[in-house]
C-alpha cells in the first residue's frame, strides 16, 4: 500500500546573518495509512521545520536542498505554492498547531474563521459546513457547539481552544493530519482526554496522523510508530512497541532515561544539540554519547537495522 506520507533524505538549510544553518540534514520517515506516527526529539532538533517543509511554508531564507516528500503517492516538492494552497492545505492535509492563542485570530469570531477555510477547501454548502463543524465540536466535547462558533478565541479555556483547533484541522475532511506538539501546554488530565479523542477520531475518520512531540509518555499513549530525530537527522525509526521495549540508538536510550516515568534519577542528557550553523563531521550525537567509539568521529554513520527491527543510524548496527 502507498504510505500516507513518506520523507526521504530531506535536507533544508536556512541562510541567516550568521551563515547557513543546516537545519534538516537527512530526515526520513514513513507514515502508513491509518496509523499514528510520533516524531520525537529535543527542542531545536528541527521538528517544526520538517512540518513547514511538508506544508511548503518554509521561513524566509530557507530552501530544500535535497530529498523527497511523497504524499499519498504524489511528489509534494513538485507542487507549486498555488497548487498547495488550492488543493492540499486543509483539504488534504490538516494542521494542528501548538499554541491556539498564536493560531486563530483573536479579532474574528471562531466560526467565521473556520467557515472561511471551508468555503475554499471543503465540498458542500455553507449550511453543510456549519453542520459539519457542529458535529465535530460535539464529537470533541465542546459544550454548546452552535454558540461556540459565535464566540472569540479568548472566551475559551486552554483545553477548549485545542479542541477547536482539532475541529479546524478536520473541518475539510483531510486524509492526513499533522500536529505540532498540540498538548504540550495543557495539564495532564486535559492532555489525556485530548489524546484519547484523537485516537478515536483517527479510527472513525480513517485518518493518518503525524504527531510531533518531545514527550515519550505521549508517544507511548497515542502512537503506533515512532521516528526519533536528532539535530536534523532521523536516528531511529520503528514501531512504538519495539523501540520502547528495546531502544537501540544511544540518543533514544538517553531520552527515555530522562522521562520521569522511567528515570531512576531525574537528569537530562548532558551537553547540547550542536548548532545547525556548525555541525561536526562524524556522528552528530558523538559529543554527548555514552558509548562513543573512535570510529564515531570520522564519518556520519549509515542506517542499519537493529535486532528490534528498527532502522537505526549508529555504527553499532552498521
Amino acid at each position: 500500500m502507498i504510505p500516507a506520507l513518506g520523507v526521504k533524505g530531506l535536507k533544508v538549510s536556512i541562510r541567516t546573518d550568521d551563515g547557513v544553518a543546516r537545519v534538516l540534514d537527512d530526515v526520513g520517515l514513513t507514515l502508513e495509512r491509518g496509523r499514528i506516527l510520533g516524531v520525537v526529539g529535543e527542542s531545536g532538533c528541527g521538528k517544526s521545520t520538517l512540518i513547514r517543509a511538508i506544508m511548503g511554508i518554509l521561513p524566509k531564507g530557507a530552501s530544500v536542498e535535497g530529498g523527497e516528500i511523497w504524499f499519498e503517492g504524489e511528489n509534494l516538492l513538485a507542487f507549486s505554492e498555488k497548487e498547495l494552497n488550492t488543493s492540499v492545505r486543509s483539504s488534504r492535509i490538516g494542521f494542528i498547531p501548538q499554541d491556539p492563542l498564536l493560531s486563530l485570530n483573536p479579532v474574528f469570531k471562531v466560526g467565521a474563521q473556520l467557515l472561511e477555510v471551508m468555503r475554499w477547501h471543503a465540498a458542500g454548502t455553507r449550511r453543510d459546513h456549519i453542520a459539519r463543524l457542529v458535529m465535530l465540536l460535539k464529537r470533541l466535547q465542546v459544550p454548546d457547539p452552535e454558540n461556540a462558533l459565535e464566540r472569540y478565541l479568548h472566551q475559551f479555556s486552554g483545553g477548549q481552544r485545542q479542541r477547536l483547533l482539532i475541529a479546524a484541522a478536520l473541518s475539510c475532511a483531510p486524509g492526513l493530519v499533522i500536529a505540532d506538539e498540540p498538548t504540550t501546554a495543557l495539564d495532564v488530565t486535559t492532555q489525556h482526554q485530548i489524546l484519547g479523542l484523537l485516537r478515536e477520531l483517527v479510527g472513525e475518520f480513517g485518518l493518518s496522523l503525524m504527531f510531533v512531540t518531545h514527550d515519550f509518555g505521549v508517544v507511548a499513549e497515542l502512537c503506533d510508530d515512532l521516528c526519533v530525530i536528532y539535530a536534523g537527522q532521523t536516528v531511529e525509526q520503528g514501531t512504538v512497541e519495539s523501540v520502547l521495549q528495546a531502544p537501540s540508538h544511544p540518543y533514544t536510550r538517553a531520552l527515555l532515561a530522562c522521562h520521569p516515568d522511567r528515570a531512576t534519577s531525574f537528569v537530562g542528557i548532558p551537553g547540547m544539540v550542536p548548532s545547525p550553523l556548525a555541525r561536526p563531521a562524524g556522528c552528530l550525537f558523538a559529543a554527548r554519547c555514552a558509548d562513543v567509539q573512535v570510529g564515531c568521529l570520522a564519518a556520519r554513520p549509515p542506517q542499519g537495522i537493529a535486532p528490534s527491527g528498527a532502522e537505526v543510524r549508529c555504527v553499532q548496527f552498521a
Partner: protein
Amino acid sequence: MARFVLRRCGLVLPSLLGLLIITFLLIHAVPSDPAAAMAGDAATPEQIARIRAQYGLDQPMWRQFLVYIAKVVQLDFGESAFSHRPVALDIFQRLPATLELTFCSLVLSIGLGVPLGVVSALKHNAWPDYLLRIFSVMGIAVAAFWFAIMLQLLFAMNLAWLPLRGDLSSTMTRPPAITHFLVLDAVLAGRWDVFGDALRHLVLPSITLGLGGLATIVRFTRAGVLDTLQQDFVFYERAMGYRRMRLIWVFILRNSVTATVTQIGLLFGGLIAGAVVVESIFDWPGIGSYTVNAILTGDKQVMLAVTLLVGAIYAGVNILVDVVHGMLDPRLMDRA
C-alpha cells in the same frame, strides 16, 4: 461601550480644567494691560478704569478665573479684543475651515500611507522598500514651511495648475453659509463651480499638512506588518490555506492597524499644531491663522478659548481612538 466612553469623558474634564488653569496663569504672567488695549490709544485714565471694572479686571486673579469658568460652562468665551465679536462666534465660523483641511490631510495620509506601508513591508529590503523608507525619513525631517513654499513655487507660480492661497478664488461668490464647511455649503447650494474651486484650493495645504503624517503612517504600518508576518499565527493561517490577498489585507492589516490607529491619534495633535503654520502660509481662514493673529495682537480671550478647544479636540480624538481599538480588538473591551 457607552459606559466605557462616559468614563473616558469623565477623566478628560479634570485634564481640561488643568489645561485652562495653566494657560490662564501663563497669559496673566505676561505684563500687559488688556483694559488699556481695549480702550484704545486716545483713552483717558477714567475710561480705562471703567473698562477694567466692567470686565472685572480689577478683581483678584482667582476671582477672575472663577468668573471665566462660570461663563465657559455656558459656552460664553467672552469677546475678542480685536474683532469685537464673541469669540465663540468667530470659532464657530472658522473651525469648519480647519476641520476641512485636517480631514483632507488625514484622508491623504491614511489613504496613501497604509497601502504604501504594506507595500514597503511586503517588498522588505527590495528597492520599493528602500525608496519608501528614504521618502518617509525625508517626510518627517522636512520643515512644513519650506515644503509649502516649494509646492507654491512649482504648482501655483510656475505651472499655475493650482491656486496659491486662500480657500476660494476672489472671482467666486460664496454660497450661503449653512454648515460653514465651504465644500458642503457649495454642494447644498448646488454650486458645482464653487465646489471644484474649493477642492482645488484644498490640495496644496492638505499635502503640506499631511506630509508628516503620511511619512509616519508609512513607517508604522511597515513595522506593524513586518512584526505580524513574523508571528506564528501567519504560519497557521497559511497552513490552513487562506487566500494570499485576503491574508495580507485583512488578517495582517487588521492586526497592524491597531498600531496605526494609535499613531493617528497622536498625529492629530501634530496636525492641529501644523495647521497654525500651514494656514498662515496659505492664508487659510481657519483656527490656525486666527490663533496666530490672537497671539500677535495679545488677544487673551481668543488664546484661552483656542487652547481649550484644541485640548478638547485632542481629548475627543483620543477617546475615539480607544473606541476604535475596542472595536478592532474585542479583548480590550472585555478588560475595560
